[in-house]
């Protein structure tokens, strides 16, 4: 049996290996260095690499992003943490108007190779301002990559790729994945950004998901298999670039697509993916639909948040209804 790795340890290992590999890499954020991060993802890095390369900062998200931009534009590879994805509203000017535009507007004189990591997602009873999945906020912003791993191996391989990438990368770490354990990747493995993975092969239906949603889709697929429905799960890994080709290829075999998103349908990635698949592959499509959250902020109370969040069960019920499989088997 292969060695197991916890998601938060995978994040730390990726940072440690890239700090070791390239002196241009620095890592900073609120409480990331001495305290080791509020999700305990980054302990020991300052001790190992020193306060010049790993440091705590004031609670100044806009300044952090701006400092990362300026450092990246002048030859460094900053990685910084915006503690909760929700706080990403604060540094948006620097990310959207500075980092994302430098490569194109400068006529390819320079780019901004920075990574901004955040804990994201609902289900932790954190309420409306600490539970959002902010990846889609960047959907209309060319020039910035949006990456969200679904497993420890992906967390490590994709974060290493993000740090080596010459472009700005928004990196989303789902809170409910930090304690998940999974097989450790091969030493030194780097996962290319922009390539979706088929997490489970199947012939009857494609479910596209990302981040924590992949685990929900895989759990649903196991239960649907008992109904005789073989689900193919595509782990998107990144929203920008969005690997529509892999999804379209899958749908060409299954003829059905469910896009499963933790976020509202309006302005979300799921509806956009459906459109992209239909636009150039309508002849393969028998059915396509989305499962998303309500068009409200994330609620706090356990009963409200549980009802708000889709789950494996939501997927199973939706697929059964959509495929006219009738009620649940007794």
């Amino acid at each position, binding site marked *: 049996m292969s060695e197991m790795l916890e998601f938060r340890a995978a994040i730390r290992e990726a940072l440690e290996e890239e700090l070791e590999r390239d002196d241009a890499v620095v890592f900073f954020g609120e409480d990331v260095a001495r305290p080791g991060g509020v999700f305990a993802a980054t302990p020991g890095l300052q001790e190992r690499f020193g306060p010049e390369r790993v440091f705590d900062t004031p609670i100044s998200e806009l300044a952090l992003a701006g400092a990362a931009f300026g450092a990246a534009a002048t030859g*460094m590879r900053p990685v910084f943490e915006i503690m909760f994805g929700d706080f990403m509203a604060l540094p948006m000017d620097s990310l959207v108007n500075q980092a994302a535009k430098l490569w194109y507007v400068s006529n*390819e004189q320079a780019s901004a190779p920075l990574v901004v990591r955040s804990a994201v997602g609902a289900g932790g009873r954190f309420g409306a301002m600490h539970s959002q999945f902010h990846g889609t906020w960047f959907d209309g912003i060319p020039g910035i990559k949006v990456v969200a791993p679904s497993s420890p191996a992906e967390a490590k391989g994709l974060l290493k790729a993000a740090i080596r990438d010459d472009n700005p990368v928004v990196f989303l770490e789902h809170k409910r994945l930090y304690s998940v354990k999974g097989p450790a990747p091969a030493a030194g493995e780097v996962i290319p950004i922009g390539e979706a993975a088929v997490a489970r092969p199947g012939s009857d239906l494609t479910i596209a998901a990302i981040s924590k949603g992949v685990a929900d889709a895989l759990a649903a697929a196991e239960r649907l298999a008992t109904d005789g429905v073989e689900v193919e799960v595509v782990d998107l890994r990144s929203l920008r670039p969005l690997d529509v080709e892999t999804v379209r290829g899958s749908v060409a075999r299954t003829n059905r697509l469910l896009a499963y998103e933790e976020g509202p349908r309006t302005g979300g990635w799921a509806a956009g993916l459906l459109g992209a698949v239909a636009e150039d592959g309508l002849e393969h499509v028998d059915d396509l639909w989305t499962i998303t959250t309500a068009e409200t902020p994330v609620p706090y109370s356990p009963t409200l948040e549980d009802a708000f969040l889709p789950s494996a069960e939501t997927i199973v019920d939706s697929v059964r209804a959509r495929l006219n499989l009738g009620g649940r088997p007794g």
Partner: protein
Amino acid sequence: MLQTIAIPPTYTEGYARMLLIREFEQGIHRLFMKGEVHGTTHLSAGQEAVPVGVCMALQPHDYVCGTYRGHGHALAKGTPADALAGEMLGRANGVCGGRAGSMNVVDVEHGLVGCFGIVGGSIAAAVGAGLSGRREGRVSVAFFGDGASNQAYFHECLNLASVMSLPTVFVCENNLYGEFTPLSASTAGGRIAERAESYAMPYEIVDGNDLWAVHDAATRAVGRARGGDGPTLLECRTYRHFGHSKSDPAKYRPAEEVEHWLGRDPLVVARERLRSEGVTEEELAATEEATREGLERALEAALAAPFPDPAERPGREFKP
């Protein structure tokens, strides 16, 4: 005399660079009226002593971050006038190939990290360049206006730079108006330099229309930065001769105020100082003629350059 070297090494050449900026801005103004400059543009005529005096205190490899009123920042740091004019005109010879325009110029070769189209952006970029600069023995400079001192960028970044003792010089070009609104109506207390006290940062209030005063203050600030003593805030008091942007005739400014500042034209101040220090009328006249001729050639070159062909070099979203 036209930017034969990136940073002017003498006050006479500094004066020539100021004149180049003035002539450049007037040339852009004319070309805007003819429809050759598109969208909008923000002219810095009247403020020339600030970027030139600051850049004269820098090394060519130091970093500068400018604003949307940034033509002077670029020219002072060494961006060639023809490439900058080409950018204003949206031509292929532009320093950014016509992709940036007036407000977003980047010139890596001359250490111009960028000019930022949104108020305050230069401040953060310079803090980041200071992180790099600290490793490399380079200094970073942020130019920004008085209006930016009310942005989150200003307060967050001055604090961060001071906490981290970064080699950054913050240069506020206080031209008394944030867009159309006077400083007194927008800035509590009416004082900008003193805000540095809150961040345990040294500051100076500088006559921004006096090349020598700016250069002296910048030399002190750059010396502190390079010596590891951290950032400085310089508030350079100056005045723009044009309105905020091309849509602004600046009718909100009292006539006496405009008259007062026109009487303190930084070019006139510099010329008189050079004359009093023994530079001859002939030398100055020759310098001025060479600068004007050079600028005229630069504008002609930009006007003669082709527009970028969208089919020739399609944009790429990401660096491969």
